[in-house]
Structures are given as structure tokens and as C-alpha cells.
């Protein structure tokens, strides 16, 4: 197996990339001087993948199955748990399921290859029985209930539900107690066969790693005869506008929470084009809603928002949005003011010095990613799945033109594509005037 090297000399960082004969894409991010090593092994399979196509047969999957599968893979045939095996070496292991990815990971200070062995082994050897599936339904049922109580989680999914008509990103990642009751061992095996095939997966390792040695372990566990090719992502032809402009829910919170998001109109782009779009959006969010922006400082001064105010943007291949959030006793007022503000800024040229400062903020933020092996692994696997070279980040930031930013501003922040999600307190508190 051959590796190719990409470098950023100014940052003194590099990435090695190679494709294993099984189809598995392998990345090594060399890091010296750190105590820890990190490995993350992921499949391009998440909650948005709802139709399984296996040998011409189409199966509708129950909501939450990708997440369920993630939990279940840790269990092994000998009655043990992969967690216990990692524990013996002192590694700390975990996994997560997002909209479009499921990933298994560990960090350790010693015995990196032994841990890599455990990781590759357990992910490639599923073991499901009626009994262990039934038990997991209880555990995940608790997890779902915990999220039902979590105001931030509800705020987020309510926004997505308002934002999207069809895109499955609006469905809760863990599913519902009802939907996961339909999960069976057979279905789980089928999902593994399809989505956990080597070409649909990626291994990212961060640290002072010997590539040759790592490949030996890959050879041992990743079989070449399991390959079914990278699974095509379905484009869902989501309408441009949002399904619902305002979504409300009452929960036990002290003050209303709001999340206001702008839906991305373009679907299915990746690579440098996607990275450029992410960067343009991040610069704009910084200029428009950063801590020194007139929007933030004015509304803060009026007491409409507080220190909890934040901004975010998440642009991926199959979905995307930018958002502002926080606590406010008058969320509709914040919403109205934000829309007015955007109408106003769209009519004027962007403030050049504000753009320059925003670019510096992004460059500083990018540098921070390299401070942690975990952060690097997690950020980079996401970039790689989107066919992005993360080492190009700073250069692209510096080269974004004023005109491009203006175009993005006018195109993205559209009232018709905006959803406001509000979590309201259960009862009117007398202090909220």
C-alpha cells in the first residue's frame, strides 16, 4: 500500500493518504511531541441513510438504526465488550453517530497498534442476537428520553423539522422508542454488510505513527472480499423554502431559548467548492454576528440577548444551514431585528476592515485545531469524507474576495429559507416582563 504526502510548510503540518487494496481510505496525520495517539474509523453512514439497497433489494430502515448499530457493535461474541479490551491497554474509546457518519475512536498513550487491532477487529466483527438487541432497546430508550428533556437538543431538532420538507436530517438521530422497536439482528447485519464495507469507510490516525506497521493490522482485519464500493448518497430534491417559519415547544427552562437558521439551497456539492462555501459563510457569520458586530453589541446593550448568544454554520454534502442562537425573553423580537438587519446589510457594501478582522479570527481558529490530536482526527475525517483537503484552509481564507462574500451574503440569508425555533418556559414566570 502506497501513501502520498500533502504538506503545509508554514504550519509545519502534513497528511499521508493511501487506499488499501480492500478499498479502505487511510489517512495518517503525523504529530510528534504529543503524549497521545488517536485513531478514528468511520463509515459514511448516518441517520440520513434510510433506504438500504442490497443486491437490488430495497429495504426501508427504521429511524435510529445507524445509532443503534453503533451501540451494538461494541458487544462481542465472547460476551465481552470492546470497551473492556481498550480498558486493558488504558485507551479511552468512544463512538458517535451523526447525520451522515458513524465513527469509532480511541485515544491512548501506549500500545497504539494493540488498540488499533482492537478497533479494527470489533468494528469488522458484528455480533447481534435477539437477546442483546432487546437489551439495547432498553438502554437507548433511556437515552432518547434524556434527549427529550434536553432543551438545546429539542431546540435544534425543532429547527430542522421546521426547515426541511423531505430531507431526513430532520429526524432525530436516535429515532424514537417506537421506531427502534422494529430493529432486528437481521436488519443490523444487512446494514453492516452494505455500509460497513471498506470502500465506504475511512481510517484516520494521528500521532507519531509507523505507516507500515499500521498497514499490517489493516491487512489482518479489513477483508478485500467485502468490498461493495462507496455507497451513493441519495439527493432528496429538497424544496428551497422552509416547511415552517416558526416552531415552538414548551419545556422546563427558565427563559426562552431561540435558534434561528438559514437553510442552504444547494445540495450535493463537495471538495474545494464546499470548503470555499463553508469559509465564505464563516467569514460572513463572523462579520454579521461576531462579538464586535453592531448586531451583537446593540441587542446586548438593549438586553435582548446575553452572553449565551452564539453563531454557527454547518454545511455538508447532504444538508446545510447557518444559525444564530441564545436565550432571550423576546425571541420574536430578536428574529425580527435579525431579518431587518440582514435586509439592511445586504444593501450596503461589506465593511472591508471587518472582513479582514474576520479572516484573522478564522486563521487563528484553524491553528487551534492542531493543538489536539482528537480534534484534528475528528475535524479531518469530516473534511476527508467531504473530499476536502483541510491543509488548504488558511490559504483559501486569505484569498476569498470581497465580491464573492457579497454574493454569498445576498444569496444565503433569505427570509423564505429561515426557520425560528423557540423553547418556551412551561409557565409564565412573573419575572419575565
Amino acid at each position, binding site marked *: 500500500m502506497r501513501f502520498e504526502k500533502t504538506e503545509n510548510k508554514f*504550519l509545519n503540518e502534513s497528511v499521508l493518504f493511501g487506499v488499501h487494496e480492500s478499498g479502505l481510505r487511510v489517512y495518517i496525520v503525523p504529530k510528534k*511531541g*504529543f*503524549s*497521545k495517539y488517536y485513531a478514528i474509523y468511520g463509515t459514511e453512514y448516518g441517520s440520513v441513510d434510510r433506504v438500504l439497497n442490497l443486491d437490488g433489494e430495497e429495504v426501508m430502515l427504521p429511524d435510529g438504526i445507524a445509532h443503534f448499530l453503533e451501540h451494538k457493535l461494541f458487544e462481542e461474541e465472547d460476551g465481552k*465488550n470492546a*470497551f*473492556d479490551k*481498550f*480498558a*486493558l*491497554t*488504558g*485507551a*479511552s*474509546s*468512544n463512538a458517535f453517530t451523526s447525520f451522515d457518519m458513524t465513527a469509532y475512536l480511541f*485515544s*491512548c*498513550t*501506549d500500545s497504539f497498534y494493540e488498540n488499533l487491532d482492537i478497533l479494527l477487529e470489533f468494528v469488522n466483527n458484528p455480533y447481534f442476537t435477539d437477546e442483546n438487541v432487546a*437489551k439495547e432497546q*432498553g*438502554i437507548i430508550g*433511556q*437515552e432518547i*428520553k*434524556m434527549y*427529550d*428533556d434536553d*432543551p438545546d437538543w429539542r431546540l435544534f431538532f425543532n429547527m430542522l423539522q421546521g426547515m426541511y420538507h423531505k430531507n431526513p436530517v430532520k429526524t432525530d438521530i436516535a429515532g424514537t422508542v417506537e421506531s427502534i422497536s422494529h430493529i432486528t439482528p437481521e436488519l443490523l447485519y444487512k446494514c453492516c454488510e452494505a455500509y460497513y464495507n471498506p470502500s465506504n469507510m475511512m481510517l484516520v490516525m494521528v500521532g507519531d505513527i509507523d505507516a507500515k506497521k499500521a498497514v499490517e493490522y489493516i491487512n489482518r482485519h479489513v477483508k478485500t472480499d467485502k468490498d461493495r464500493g462507496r455507497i451513493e448518497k441519495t439527493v432528496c430534491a429538497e424544496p428551497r423554502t422552509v416547511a415552517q417559519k416558526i416552531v415552538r415547544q414548551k419545556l*422546563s*427552562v*427558565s*427563559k426562552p431559548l431561540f435558534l434561528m437558521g438559514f437553510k442552504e439551497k444547494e445540495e450535493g456539492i463537495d471538495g474545494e467548492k464546499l470548503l470555499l462555501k463553508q469559509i465564505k459563510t464563516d467569514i460572513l457569520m463572523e462579520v454579521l454576528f*461576531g*462579538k*464586535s458586530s453592531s448586531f*451583537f*453589541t446593540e441587542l446586548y*446593550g438593549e*438586553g435582548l440577548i*446575553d*452572553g449565551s448568544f452564539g453563531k454557527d454554520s454547518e454545511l455538508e454534502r447532504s444538508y446545510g444551514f447557518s444559525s444564530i442562537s441564545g*436565550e432571550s425573553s423576546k425571541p420574536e423580537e430578536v428574529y425580527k431585528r435579525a431579518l431587518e438587519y440582514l435586509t439592511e446589510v445586504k444593501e450596503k457594501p461589506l465593511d472591508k476592515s471587518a472582513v479582514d*478582522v*474576520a479572516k*484573522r*479570527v*478564522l*486563521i*487563528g*481558529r484553524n*491553528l*487551534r485545531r*492542531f*493543538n*489536539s*490530536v482528537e480534534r484534528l482526527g475528528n475535524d479531518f475525517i469530516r473534511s476527508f469524507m467531504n473530499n476536502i483537503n483541510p491543509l488548504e484552509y488558511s490559504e483559501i481564507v486569505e484569498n476569498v474576495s470581497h465580491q464573492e462574500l457579497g454574493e454569498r451574503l445576498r444569496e444565503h440569508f433569505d427570509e423564505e429559507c429561515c426557520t425560528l425555533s423557540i423553547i418556551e418556559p412551561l409557565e409564565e414566570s412573573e*419575572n419575565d416582563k
Partner: protein
Amino acid sequence: MKTDVYEISKGVKLRFIETDKFKTNVLSVYFCLPLCRENVTCAALIPRVLKRGSVKYPTMAQLSRRAEELYGASIGADILKEGDELLIRASAQFVSDSFITETIIKDIAELLYEFVLCPITKDGAFDKTYVEQEKENAKNFIKGLINDKKEYAQVRCNEIMFEGDPYGNFSYGYVEDLECIDEKNLYDFYKDVIETAEVNIFASGCFDKDAVKAEIEKTFGKALSPRDSKRTRTNLAAFEESIKVKEVTEEITASQSKLCMGFNCGIEPASDECYAVAVFSCIYGGSPFSKLFNNVREKLSLAYYVFSAFNRQKSFMRISAGVEAGKFSAAYDEILLQLDMMKNGDFSDDEIASAKKYLKTQVGSIKDSLVATEDFYMTRAMMLVDESPDEFLEKINKVSREEIIAAANKMQLDTVYFLKGVSGDEI
């Protein structure tokens, strides 16, 4: 990693942590004051008021803009609870000069100095509008604690366990105490902190040490006059003869319930027994392979999360679990059963070895984060314990089975707090 300490003025220490493996540096200032009802609400307001503006950058927008210009330096302040003491920490994280085309470390030192020591004042008081607005924000924040049920349960458990003790104070303060605070008495409070509190300044990362030292001496060294350090001795959570366990149940509208249990440990923070407790805690409930995780969650499905944590400064252990209301007693029984097993030595040598390795990974995490490393050294400075992360690990590796059993037997249940989730119409 190299550390060094200088006393730049009596009661004002400058500590260096030098390492070149990160792309950012950290500069922090800590003021140490007693944890008590009189201090908490005022202290919690200080970070909020400071960020509103300084003499040179009189508005929040100008202050933020200055930090943004310096490659998005994050500058801010917060409050930490360390035993029976309270720390006000102001800190700046910023990119190291090696990765940008200019030198910013002096500008950062100057900005942090502005932020901490030159707040906007008028006639010997803070700005009235700022203080009033931040009182309102603080009030909302304190009330907002209820939004996070897990944290809320922990705070309530703490209040009940340490009622009448300084440690029972909520470090973010009290709504009812906000009313008596105004721009004048808050400024007097802060002036007193600045003039009398023990100060620790940390400079961590990769930079020209002499230049940083000179800059700190010129700014902070000049402004912070010599002081006698007035440290408060922490009253440890000690073993009580014939203890009556405090049991409190409260209801809340939620689908899940939270269980918190507090235990007295009564172990001096500087004693070697602490290392045995760290290993014990790891096997019992402080790791993903712990007895609590494997039995309470995995085997019996009694909780979605369950973990224990040991607080070395105050010497207590707290268990937190997310459970279904109907499974409270089963979860409670199992938690105590597992503790009894630990007390009886019912754990394997593999579990000890795993715990030690796990702690090694944890220490690796500390060494791989500048903020965590600084935190490690600051906590040690507070406890008057002189140890590096590697020295900590050496002590951990020496812990024996007998010492772990002895540590387990120090745990004495003091408080059981149950936040019972009920549906909306039941309340």
C-alpha cells in the same frame, strides 16, 4: 515541558510553563479569595462587568474587536471553586507568533492588563448601566441552572451535603443577593480583591520568556502592590460518627430522573492516600469500564449514565446517575452494593492495572492541553502540593490493592438527592 516560578511582588507569583508543541499560548491571572456567601455573588459579577469595557477600549465592541484583530484571541474571565476558596481567573488564549507573520504576545499581555486592571470607572465606581445589565444577566444565568437537569441535581446535592459549610455556596451567586449590589460597592469589592488577594500569573506555551517576564513586570508587576497572602484552610468533608444520611427528593417536569449521592472521604489533599482514592474511583465509577458503568448501566439497564468523581481539595466523592423514576431504588441499591464489593476487595488485578493505565491516558490528556496543564499546576499551587503530571503518575503506579481497599472504606454516604421527573400534569 519546563516550569519556573518568580515572585514579581510579594504575594504575586509569575509561573512559566514552557513547551513548543502547541500552536497557541495561554496567559492567565488568578485572584484567590475565601469562598463565602458575602463573596460569591460579587465575584461572579466581575467577569461579566470586565468584558463590558476598559479605559482604552471603552465598549464591548472595541474590546472584542481588539481581541479579534489579534487573530481571534479569546479573552475572558470566570470563577473557579477550589476547596473553600474562590478563584477569579482572567485568561487569554492566542496564537503563537511562529505561525503568523507578526509578533502579538506583547499586545496580548497589554490587552489582558487592560481587561483586568483598567476597567471603565467613574467617580470611584463601575459604570452603572453595565452593572445593572450584568446583574440582570447574572440573575437569568442563575435561574437558568434548571435548564440542565444533570448539573442542577449536582448543585442541589452539593447544597444539601454542605449546608452551613462554605463549600455549600453556589459559585455563581444568589439572585436575592444581587439586589444589594451596585456599581459602587461592587467596585469597592473588586478594588479590595486587586489590592489584597493572592495573585498567580501563568504564561504557558512557546515565546521569548525574558521579553514576556519584562512585559508582565512592567504591567501587572507595577500595578499589583505587595500583599500578605491570606489563604483559607479548607474544611474537609470528614467522616462523621453515627451519621444520619440526608435524603431529599424533589420533583421536576421531565421524563428522566437524576440521582446524586455525596460521600465524605476525609483525606488530606497533600497525603498519599489521595492517589489510592484516584485509583479506587476509577475502578468504581470513574471510567468507561468501571463497576458502576458495567453493572448499573450495561448489565442491569438501570441508568443511562452513571459515574463517580472524587474532589481532592474538599475530599468528597459524588455519584451522578440518570435513571427512570421507577428504577430509583434498584439503581441506589446496586450503586451501594458495588461500593461494598470495593470495600471487601472484590475487584481484580486486571481492574487495578486498567485503572492505572486509564489514569496514564488521562494524564496524557492533561499534558496534551495547555489549558489543562495550567489548571493542573494551579490546583497544585492551591493545595501546596509540588508535583508534575509525571510525578502524579509515578505515585499512582505505586498504589497497592490494600491501599485501594482502605480508600474504599473511607467512603461514607452523607447525602442522597433524587430529582424525580414527573410529567407536566402530575405537578
